[in-house]
């Protein structure tokens, strides 16, 4: 059964068309992440789902019920906001209980649920404190507690981690993933952070300019992107794009180098393309050249160690590409060496339509 079904949703702000005909079908228990660059319409879409924005056209169903024009409180949703949205004049317990009181739950039931939620989030000892006495991470836990204390069909998260520092963000991400596994509820999560999207999602919906660019499992989007935008958005460091022209056996790069593309004989020769290669698919040359790999001599331009790995910038095909190598494989710029390009994992993109061929 699907918990959320969106059909051809549009949202206009005056002349600005923020969401352009988005359709979405989220299954029960699924963790869906709406991701995309700023201004892509992901937050607007979430606010339309929550009922905080009136839709211009289209249809929204939650739990099989048409809620397109329903008030937020009649949609059976719970939401966590970016800025926590805690009531400063209520203590943690009353903040968590706020939604239950608004829905006239019995005090004994409220007591039970607040205890369960606060234990789950490890904030049981903070119940009598006020928001101003909490750290950023604790506040966000309370905000999450306020959502999970309710039995909603749909849980919405609007960039809940973007105000936290990097370390805390990693911890909270784990926490949210664990919560989803424990509760098994349907969650919609908005973020602009592709790492959050990849690590949390059962399904990623990648938005661009108000349109769904591609949706699917994180690995599906990562390994089989349908457009240059998707290929470039997911993955860190970013995918390398090399300009070239299709030949009978592969691709001829801008600097004249020819690379063989295994299993791509059907492609049309002479077409202008972009060759997409992930930094992880470039390795330092081994003893032998593996099948489907291309060995190329290079001079290292720049070395950026990240601890466990090292990001190396090197010239290739008339541009600079980034390769991710082992921490001790390269030591300094200027070094001359050979790299192996895994052409079986490379993608070919139409230079005009920017669609993957």
């Amino acid at each position, binding site marked *: 059964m699907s918990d959320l079904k969106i059909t051809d949703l549009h949202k206009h702000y005056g002349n600005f068309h923020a969401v352009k005909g988005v359709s979405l079908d989220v299954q029960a228990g699924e963790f869906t992440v709406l991701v995309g660059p700023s201004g892509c319409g992901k937050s607007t879409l979430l606010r339309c789902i929550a009922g905080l924005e009136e839709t211009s056209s289209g249809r929204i169903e939650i739990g099989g019920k048409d809620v397109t024009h329903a008030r937020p409180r009649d949609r059976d949703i719970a939401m966590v906001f970016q800025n926590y949205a805690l009531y*400063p004049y209520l203590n943690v317990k009353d903040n968590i209980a706020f939604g239950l009181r608004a829905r006239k739950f019995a005090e004994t039931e409220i007591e039970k649920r607040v205890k369960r939620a606060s234990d789950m989030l490890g904030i049981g000892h903070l119940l009598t404190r006020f928001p*101003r*006495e909490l750290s950023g991470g604790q506040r966000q836990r309370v905000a999450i507690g306020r959502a999970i204390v309710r039995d909603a069909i749909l849980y919405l998260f609007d960039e809940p981690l973007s105000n936290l520092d990097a370390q805390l963000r990693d911890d909270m991400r784990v926490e949210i993933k664990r919560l989803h596994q424990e509760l098994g509820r349907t969650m919609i999560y908005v973020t602009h952070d592709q790492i959050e999207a990849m690590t949390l999602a059962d399904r990623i919906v990648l938005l661009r300019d108000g349109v769904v660019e591609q949706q699917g499992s994180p690995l599906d989007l990562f390994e089989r992107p349908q457009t240059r935008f998707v290929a470039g958005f997911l993955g860190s460091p970013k995918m390398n794009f090399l300009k070239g022209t299709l030949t009978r056996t592969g691709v001829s790069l801008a600097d004249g180098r020819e690379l063989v593309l295994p299993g791509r004989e059907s492609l049309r020769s002479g077409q202008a393309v972009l060759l997409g290669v992930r930094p992880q698919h470039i390795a330092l040359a081994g003893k032998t050249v593996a099948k489907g790999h291309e060995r190329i001599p290079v001079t290292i331009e720049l070395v950026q160690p990240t601890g466990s790995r090292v990001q190396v910038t090197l010239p290739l095909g008339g541009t600079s590409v980034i390769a991710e190598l082992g921490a001790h494989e390269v030591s300094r710029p200027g070094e001359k060496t050979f790299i192996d390009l895994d052409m079986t994992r490379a993608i070919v993109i139409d230079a005009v339509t920017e669609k993957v061929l």
Partner: protein
Amino acid sequence: MSALPFHRRAGVRLSLRYLIAALLVIIFCFPVYWLFIISFKTPDEIFAYPPVWYPASIQFANYAVLFKDGDAATVGNSLVLASISTFFAMIFGTVAAYSLVRFKTGGENLAVWIISQRMMPPVAIVFPIFLLYIWIGWVDSYFGLIILYTAFSLPYVIWMMRGYIEDIPLELEESALVDGCSRWETLWKVVLPMARSGLFATAVFTFIFAWNDFLFALVLTRTEVTTYTVQVTHYFGGQSNFWAKIAAMSVLGTIPVFFTVAVMQRFLVRGISMGAVKG
């Protein structure tokens, strides 16, 4: 240069500052003291020369007269008029301000138009209002003055509350709406507590405006709902002034305002919205 060590010099400077401050306090508080003290003096002491700085014994005869003659009831009238009009102005003004802020009611210009009503000199409209009130029979009635004070306070309340409500993070309200509150419940459970300090500050000033009104009360009342401000003027006579009564009445008129501000003072402290959002 002086051979005084640094800490001694600092001490002298501080003492000098306190001395000047004390002098200023005495100068500014003296009229208030004089008013209070006159109200406790006998007629002989009031007109004594050289002046009697403090009475030989505190006596309440001046107040007793006000209560015996029924003059003190005018303070009650002022209290009723100011309290009820403040109550209604706060209710309607806050709801109107919320509507202006959240629903952009009237676009950009309505709020400015509303505050412009406040800038109108009351004396310019008191005559038309007087004629209107005679026509509908509201002269010298509680109802008439309450309506008038409420209407006159509304622009101020709307303008002030609009600013306080604009400061409330929108997410707090949205969170309440999602959590199961209606708009009215959100106003009651989120907006009012968040704007509490602003609410009290505005109420205090609204109360004081109505409390201090003289012009409308003078023109629109006769005998039934005379306010204390009008009553005080009755003691200024052509032949002589009733200083004892003026002083006692003025003290009675000051006490409610004094208490209102004293009680509300702790609510006037800012900083209540700390911790609502990130930061």
